[in-house]
Structure formats: C-alpha cells, structure tokens
C-alpha cells in the first residue's frame, strides 16, 4: 500500500521548526553551493541545500537529521522556487528523511547479492537489538530501514549507518558494530573482513594475476 509515511503533525512541526535558519557556518556553505550554479539556475542547488539542512537539523537534535516541512520551505524560499517543487525532491530521494530518525540510521541492504550473502542475519541482529523496520528504538538510538542496492555488492552483505558503510558483515560483527555505536565508540568502517582492505578479492587476485607485478599483454593468449 503506497501510503504516506508517518509525517508528523504539521502544527507541531511548524511550532518547533518554523524559525529554522542557517547557522552562520552553514549560511556560508549554502552561499558557496548556490554559487556553483549559473545565474537563473539556482534551483539546481536544491539537493545539496536540502542535505545541508537535514544535517543542521541532525546537529540540533543529535540525530541523523530529517526534513521538517518548514525546513523544506526555508530551502525553497531561499532558492525562489515553489514549495511543492522542493517537497517533490525531498520525497523522491530516500536519503532525505521526512520523519525524525534516531541517532544512527541503520540502512540494511536487502537486494539480491546481499540477500544471498546473508543479509537476513544482519536483519536478525538488528531485530534482536529491538529494532523494527521503519521505526526508531525507544531510546532514540537506532532507526532501521531496509534499502535497495547501495552498490557495494562485492562486499555483501552491507549496511549503511549515517555516512559510513560497514561491509562483509555477519551476525556477530553486526552485533559488535551496534554495541560499539550504542556505547558511543566509533567502530571500524568499511570491510569487516580482516583479510580485505577494500573490495579486492580475498587472498589475492583471482583474475589478471599477471598484471599484479608488471603490465602484461593478454591479447596473445586470447
């Protein structure tokens, strides 16, 4: 059912966020972002500005941040565009949150490669910590979302938590990461497989092996 997400009550949100304005630092950033686009095309800056606004809201609420309606309107007014056009953008992209999220926004990939590599275990780890899909935990720490492919299939399964990716996960490493975050520690980002640095094949190259040391012309072997 394509129902609207649980958008908070408008009057309350307006009372809380109606006076939203850039911080001095963000005002500078916003100016720089708008200056990237040619005159008369300032509307193109709507996406970076919405992101900036979401981060500011996040900093104010000590969460990952979200976009209350007055904040979207603030950005739209700054770019001289109708509110509806900015709202369309904010609702189209899943990285803009239209409802408040927790301190950590846990986005578990459930697309085929991650599913095959065990994303169900990752999801179970989250569930066992009391998270429910689309909801924030009562302590306000975690919001769980299942997302589609994040383009990290070589390191499946993966989650994105706030701005960081955690890859090559299993049940235990996921539990550890969540524990660390809850304890206020910063876990190691990227791959959790000690044998990998990034997305290279585990245990050395499996193809183009000759290329490791020096350039090699494979064409003769075709």
């Amino acid at each position, binding site marked *: *059912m*394509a*129902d*609207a997400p649980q958008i908070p009550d*408008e009057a309350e949100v307006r009372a809380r966020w109606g006076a939203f304005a850039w911080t001095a630092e963000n005002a500078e950033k916003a100016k720089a972002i708008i200056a990237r686009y040619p005159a008369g095309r300032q509307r193109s800056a709507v996406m970076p500005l919405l992101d900036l606004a979401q981060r500011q809201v996040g900093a104010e609420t000590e969460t990952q941040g979200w976009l209350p*309606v007055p904040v979207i309107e603030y950005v739209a007014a700054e770019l001289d565009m*109708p*509110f*509806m*056009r900015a*709202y*369309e953008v904010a*609702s*189209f992209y899943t990285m803009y949150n239209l409802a408040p999220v927790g301190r950590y926004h846990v986005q578990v990939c459930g697309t085929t490669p991650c599913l095959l590599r065990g994303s169900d275990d990752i999801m179970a780890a989250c569930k066992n910590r009391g998270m429910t899909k689309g909801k924030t935990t009562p302590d306000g720490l975690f919001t769980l979302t299942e997302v589609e492919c994040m383009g990290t299939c070589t390191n499946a399964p993966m989650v994105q938590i706030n701005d960081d990716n955690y890859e090559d996960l299993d049940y235990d490493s996921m539990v550890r990461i969540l524990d660390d975050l809850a304890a206020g520690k910063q876990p190691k980002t990227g791959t959790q497989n000690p044998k990998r640095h990034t997305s290279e094949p585990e245990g050395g190259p499996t193809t183009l092996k000759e290329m490791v040391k020096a350039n090699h012309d494979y064409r003769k072997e075709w």
Partner: protein
Amino acid sequence: MPKVTVDGVELDVPQGATVLQACEMAGKEIPRFCYHERLSIAGNCRMCLVEVSPGPPKPQASCALPTAEGQVIKTDSPMVKKAREGVMEFLLINHPLDCPICDQGGECDLQDQSVAYGRGATRYDENKRAVTEKYMGPIVKTVMTRCIQCTRCVRFAEEVAGVEDIGAIYRGENMQITSYLEHAVASELSGNIVDLCPVGALTSKPYAFEARPWELTKTLGIDMMDAVGTNVRIDSRGRQVLRVLPRVNDDVNEEWASDKTRHHVDGLIRRRLDRPYVRKGGQLAEATWAEAFDAIKAAKAGKSVAAIAGDLVDCETMFAAKALVNALGSTLLEGRQTGLDYDVSSLSAVNFNTTIAEAENADVILLIGTNLRWEAPLINTRIRKAAWKKGAKVFAVGPEKDQTYKVTWLGDDASLVAKLPASALDALKSAERPLIILGGGGLAVPGVHGAALALAKSVNAVKDGWNGFSVVHMAASRMGGLMLGYAQAGGIKDIVAAKPKLAFFLGADEVDFTAFDKTLKVYVGHHGDKGAHAADVILPAAAWTEKDFTTVNTEGRVQRSEKAVFAPGDAREDWSIFRALADALGASVGFDSFDECRAAMIAAVPALGTEGLAGYGWSVPKLDAKPAKGPIPSPIKDFYLTNAICRASPTMQRCSEELVHGADFAEAAE
C-alpha cells in the same frame, strides 16, 4: 518542411513538428494520455508508441520525437499494436475496475482507449496498489487509486494556472499526485484539471454522482459570469442544468473555463424568482402577472421611465427593455449599475482592442487598476503566457494582488498613470508590441481613462497591425449594453437626477437603491437577491441558460448562446415580458416573437447581427488626463460572489469561504 511517410502516405510537415503531430496530419489517431496540445510534452505514459525508421528497432514515443526528413512512420504495424497492448496492460495493472461507480465513466480516455487498443483481458493476478485520497479543494474530488500519473494536472497548474501547488511526490510505484500538503489548490482555474484528467482520478466535486454523460442534453452556450465570453457547453437533464464545460475557441478561452463559469450552475436552481411579486404594505406578496402589470400601470409614469441593466443580461433583453422605454417616450438607459461614468463617445476607447488571443504576443504590458486574475481569469492566462513563456515584462499600477506571474508593482496611486516611473515608460516606449490594460478599478477613478489613452498615444501603442490599448470589463452585458446605448453621460447619476417615476432593473443588483426611493422599482430578473429585495414589483425572468441570446464580450466579439432548459414556474423569457408589458401600458415595441425582437435589434444595431468581432475602429476622444492623487480601488472583493447566481450557489459560497476567506474545510484523508 521535412517530408515523412505515415503508413505509406507521404506528406510535408512543418519544421519542428513531432511524429505524433505528423500522424494526426495524416489523419491517423494516436492514443495518448499524457500528451496535450496546450501543455508541455512529458512523454511518460508511453501510449503513443509508433514504429519509426530510421531509428532504433523498437517502438518510439511519438509525442516527444521530432520529425526528420525521410522518416517512415508506421502506426498500424504488428509491433505498434503489440506495444500499445503492452502499455495498456501495464497502465491497467494498478487501475481499479470501478468504472460503474466512477464519474468519468462514459467520457474516460482510459476506458475508450482500452477498448480500442487493449488486449481485452488481464493476466495480472497480484494485488493492486491503492493510494489514499488527496484533498484538493472544494472543486476537485480525487480518487487517486485511479491515477495513471500522466502529470497533466501538474503541468496545467504550473504552466497555465501559474499555481505550483500540485506535484508528484515519492517515486516509482509509490508516486502520488497531490496538492502541497493537501491544501486546497488556490486557483480560480482548478476545475480545468478535471477535464484534463484522462481517467477518473480527478473528478468534479459538486457534480459527483449527478449524471452520466450520455443522459445529458448538450447545448452550445456563451458564459455570462464575466466579460470574457467563454464558449461553453451546457449539459442539462430535464429542466436542470447539471454542469457547464468549456468549448474550444482559440480566439477566446482556448479550452479553459474559470471555476465560476463551471460551478455557478447549482445557483441556477436556488433562490429563483418563479412567480411575480408586488409590494403591499411594505411586504412583497405573491401575485399574478396581471396584478403585477396593474401595479406598474398604477404608477402612471407616463414618459418618466428608466431602465437599468445588470451584469448578466443579454442584448435581446436590453433591446426589448430599450424598445419599451423608447416607446413610452424616454431615453433613460444605463448599464453601469455601480455608478461608473467613463466616456463612451467612442467604443474603441473602452474595448479590449488588442483582442484576447493577440494579448499573449505583447512584449511589455502595463496593467492599470486591474486585478486581472479575478476580473478576467482567462485573459490573465494569456498575459501569463506572454510573461512566463515569452518573457514579456509586466508593470502594474493599482492595489497589489498576486497575478501568478512576475509583475513590477509601481504603486496604487492613480496619478502614477499620468507620470509613470522612467523604467516603465522607457520599457513601453521601446517595446515592439506594448499593451496597456485598463481595468474596472482604473475606470472608476476620474482622469485615469484619459491618462491611459494619452499614455497609449505617447508610447505609440496603436500602430499598423497592433492595437495595444485594451479595457477589461467585468460585466458580460457591458459591451452589448454600450452598443445598445445603455449609457448616460453622467452614468447612473443622470438617471437619479431625472427622478423617473418608474424604473426597470434588468437583473441589476449592485445599484444603490436608496437613490430611487420615490421610484416604482420593477425588478426583472431571475434571482432573489439585492435587487429583488429592494423592488416594488418583481417580474420573474429567465437566466442565461434559459433563453437564446446574443452577447458581446470585452473585446467586442458578438456571440450567440442557445436555450438549454426552461425557466422555472411562472418565469418568462425577458423579451416576452416587455412585449406583454407594452400591451399593458398601451405602447408598441414593434415585435411579437423572439425572432422579430432579434431582427429589430439587428436592424437598430447591425453589428450585433454577425457573430465575431464587431470592430469599432480606432477613433478615441481626448479626455481629461489628470488623474487625482489617491489609491485606485479594487473593484472585485470576492471573485466567487460577484453576481446573484454565484451568491445563490452553495459551491461558490464554499469556494469563497475557503479560498478567499480562508476557512478551513480540509477533510481528513481517510
């Protein structure tokens, strides 16, 4: 001029034409949902697929594909047939099968095209997705599960109405069309999105579950709600008009109509005067026609007779009243009921000379004392086209009101018209096609009319092939009335000064009736409104849908409207009332039938005999051009309640409360 072949027929198409247009020129029907001639091209419904070579070996969306020299287009190949069936099947996946309870049934593009181009059966066994209803205001009812996301309504709101309140939120299967935060769409043109919607997602709220299109009698009419002269189709069943839809006329309304035009019709069956009344001992009492006529005769007015025309009356009515007043020996006629007294020695000085269709070609526009958006919404769309699409500059003198496009407001002081700021004056002077639009607010201030005419001369607004001096009227009867001589030099003050013993008020509700306290006031009209309250004798007449008539719009376009239904009760067509009254008063009006009345009117004013622009030439008088200092008033206080029919209409009342006065009627979307 590329030469293309459509289904084996070679033809030349204009440069820049799309493949869809080429197919239409070849007489081929291309099914479509999102494409609309008057909106930008979206290309998102994919229904207009055709086979084009050279090109990729797959069907192409013809609406968004430009023609090229030597293209071979096939609209009837097996590939095209299969492609259309496929698109239709996808569109119908989430479309509910609720045609029997859908108001669009019988005039639904999706219904028609699925019969013509669909597979005939479904292969889809999964659940359909459902979408919650959206609140879009008092005019538009939504059933969003039916929406196929063609985005016509979004494009209309942005491009024509200029109210960017409608948009598509979320994405993919979750995409939904909605107004911003489900607030009412604050446009006086919102009813048009109902017509544009190719499915039953947006339907008319006041007309919900009223009738099926095939049981309606369609009559061609001309709308009388404003002076634009919107061409409409009156849909009636039995004795009731159920809805009014616009007809295509590129010279006047394109294919739009304002919400007032569409939805005042429920006022036509309310507060109607359906029998004569005579005031006895201070109270209006029901009477027979004979008693009413006796009461008029008893006034023994002799020559002391006047007629005052309201905003909704047609030329034949005004002519019949004029014939009677003249036959009784008087010439006291006036149509500007609110007391305007601008000079009418030349009709070209009070006419929309530019013509409505040409107005969109202006490059610099000056609005004087007009809230065009309310006075003539469909002229405003033309100005918006000029400003928004073609980049015309718009300046305005008068009270500041949002016009949906960028306007440089110069201030609301009337004296500004005589000495415009240099920026505006230079822009007008250097313009190729300058346009000066004078509205009702401007006409009300002495001197502004003359100053505007002087300005038109000084900026050379009238030249070969371009007349840039235009006056916007608000009353549908105005230009016709002026042609028939319904104007005194001093306006209605002259009538008051003449102290007539008997005065006919032809649907005139906005008159200051206290000035006529010694006069026997005869109200000839159709609604029990201000005029009827003040009247001594009420003669019930026919509303605009209940008679054949001629009317002249603000650009001097003579148009004819036909009778759709009969007037209720004892009410009679206006001409016959004056014909009978002539007998009662012992005078002769010189006609015995409607046709004779019309013929006599045409004999008196030949320009009313031919439909089309009357053409007043260009010979304007020199008028006082020194407007007094002071703000220009705003003549329309409430767009939705400008006349007796609107005030009787529950829909218009609700629009007024919600959109003008801001009462909150938002329904919780279940």
